[in-house]
């Protein structure tokens, strides 16, 4: 079970004023695994994603991608290096069409420059056509191909989540961070996302998921990390984590855990 580590954090800490949102978290994501990060609300899960992607620079500690230090990188640099993410509170480009939303993710793969765009050179047309083709493939992959010319603001909640995934995949990342991809979804939609995540992994992409939905977490995770009050309290296979005493206490409230 020893695929090499792709993304690691070393004693990662984030402090907001006096509040320690993350307190020395060291974890390792292995190549091509589906890793879940769970924990009660306010445990620091989203802060962890923010610290890894440079959205919220860590107070101390290191983040490494393929062994390379990416701690001081800005969000766009991290994205270019191959770490894509979705957001918990969705951020689609509301006044753009679905296709354009995904094309923004293709931006880093575009090769034609400004002069080519102004003069409409063949170089520009080919580049646009190629990226649009890929964007349509990705929309088809998440089941939104039919609605590619609709504005993102007219999508339902679930559709927006799918759009965020397609947009993140457009980067062709090596690691995909999903922040609560099935929150607020019905069981059918959840099932669809689970299949989707498995397919994404089949394509060789490592997936890290923050999720509260235990059916999803237990159903697809290879491994699970548990965060509470900014600290890692457990790590292991799904069945190990489920039986972990510290985890049960964190979820049910310390001291009030039911005795066996």
């Amino acid at each position, binding site marked *: 079970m020893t695929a090499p580590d792709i993304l690691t954090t070393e004693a990662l800490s984030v402090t907001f004023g006096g509040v320690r949102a993350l307190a020395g978290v060291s974890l390792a994501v292995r190549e091509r695994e589906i890793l879940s990060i769970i924990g009660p609300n306010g445990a620091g899960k989203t802060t962890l994603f923010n610290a890894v992607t440079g959205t919220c620079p860590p107070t101390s500690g290191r983040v490494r991608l393929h062994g390379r230090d990416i701690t001081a990188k800005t969000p*766009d640099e991290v994205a270019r290096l191959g770490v894509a993410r979705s*957001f918990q509170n969705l*951020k689609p*480009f509301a006044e753009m069409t679905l296709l*354009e939303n995904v094309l923004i993710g293709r931006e880093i793969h575009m090769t034609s420059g400004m002069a080519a765009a102004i003069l409409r050179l063949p170089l*520009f047309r080919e580049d646009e056509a190629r990226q649009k083709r890929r964007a349509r493939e990705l929309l088809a992959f998440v089941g939104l191909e039919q609605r590619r010319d609709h*504005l993102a603001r007219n999508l339902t909640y679930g559709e927006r989540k799918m759009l965020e995934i397609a947009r993140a995949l*457009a*980067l062709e990342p090596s690691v995909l961070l999903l922040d609560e991809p099935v929150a607020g979804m019905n069981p059918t939609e959840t099932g669809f996302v689970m299949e989707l995540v498995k397919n994404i992994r089949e394509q060789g992409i490592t997936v890290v998921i923050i999720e509260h939905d235990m059916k999803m977490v237990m159903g697809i995770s290879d491994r699970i990390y548990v965060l509470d009050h900014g600290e890692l309290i457990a790590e292991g296979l799904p069945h190990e984590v489920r039986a972990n005493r510290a985890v049960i206490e964190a979820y049910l409230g310390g001291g009030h855990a039911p005795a066996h």
Partner: protein
Amino acid sequence: MNARNLRHDLFFYLGILLICVPFLKIHTLYVLPVFLGAWGLRRFADFAGENRLMVTLRERTVNSVLAHRRVTVGLILAVALLIPLGASDYLIEVFTSVILYAILATALNITVGLTGVLVLGFIGFYAVGAYTTGILTAKFALCGFWIALPLSGLAAMLCGILLGIPALRLRGDYLAVVTLGFGEIIRIFLTNLNGLTGGPNGILGIKRPSFGLFTLDHPRDFYWFALAVLSLVILIVARLVDSRYGRAWIAIRENEMAAGALGINVFRKHLLSFSLSAFFGGIAGSLFAVKQGFISPDSFTFYESVLILCMVVLGGIGNVAGSVTGALLLIAAPEFLREFSLYRMLVFGAVMIAFMVFRPSGLLGSRVIAQEIKDRADDGP
């Protein structure tokens, strides 16, 4: 009646009252037609918004305009080309002003409309362009207009980059205030840098450009030249909007954080849109200098910056055709209402308020409206 309607009514009648103020001085009776006209317009708008036939008609029009974009653009261009043949010299001058402001509004639309960065001192770039041309061709007579024109654009662009590098790290209102300061600093520089700019007296005797032996002295010839420049600017901007650059700008406007997470370098794209705006602003300034033959700091006040911003908002944020329409409305209309020139700002204020309430997306709207109609057509049975 719900609260929203009540608020609309309140704004509506207040706006009318404001518009009526200048008329009151002349004759109280003038108020009546204004009021009736506004009321009728409003009833018509309500009717048009609900009546099935009118809605279909509107959607058909929008759709056919979109489908035959080339024809529409060709028609508008043909009319614009023919205007000087039938108009007096005075009218041609007015329309030339419209064109210059249309270039400015199109340029400002890149930052304000597409990228979502509020710039309050845009006239500063116009001034830099105008003075670069004035200084190079008249004051020191270093070169001709054809060399000065691109240099004016580049000088404004350089100012844009120098201002943008520190300022674009700020957000929203703070950035707006910095750009406001920039516009004022430029004006004060021009007033006090006597040796270079001629101080409050400005620069005189800027010659009109010429092609070999043929000089663009006649207002008509200059109008056509300005129209050609405007067309080129619109073509460039429209093509950029419909490319990875325009998409990135709009994405940043919609959500900076998401754009960053998708690998877009927000700062660099901001700087690009800012310097492009400045470049075209400088080009417009250069045209202004040769059109007037005389420039002074008085032409580059804060009022002008607000005026250009009004054009962008009125025409439709992020809509290139809207900027031109806004320029036409705000420059041409006041010329025909000269008696009320004292109250111009008052009327502008009222119109802006009315737009905020009734049509926040501007006269032509952003392209979103057209897309909405298409969406509905797709979803329909």
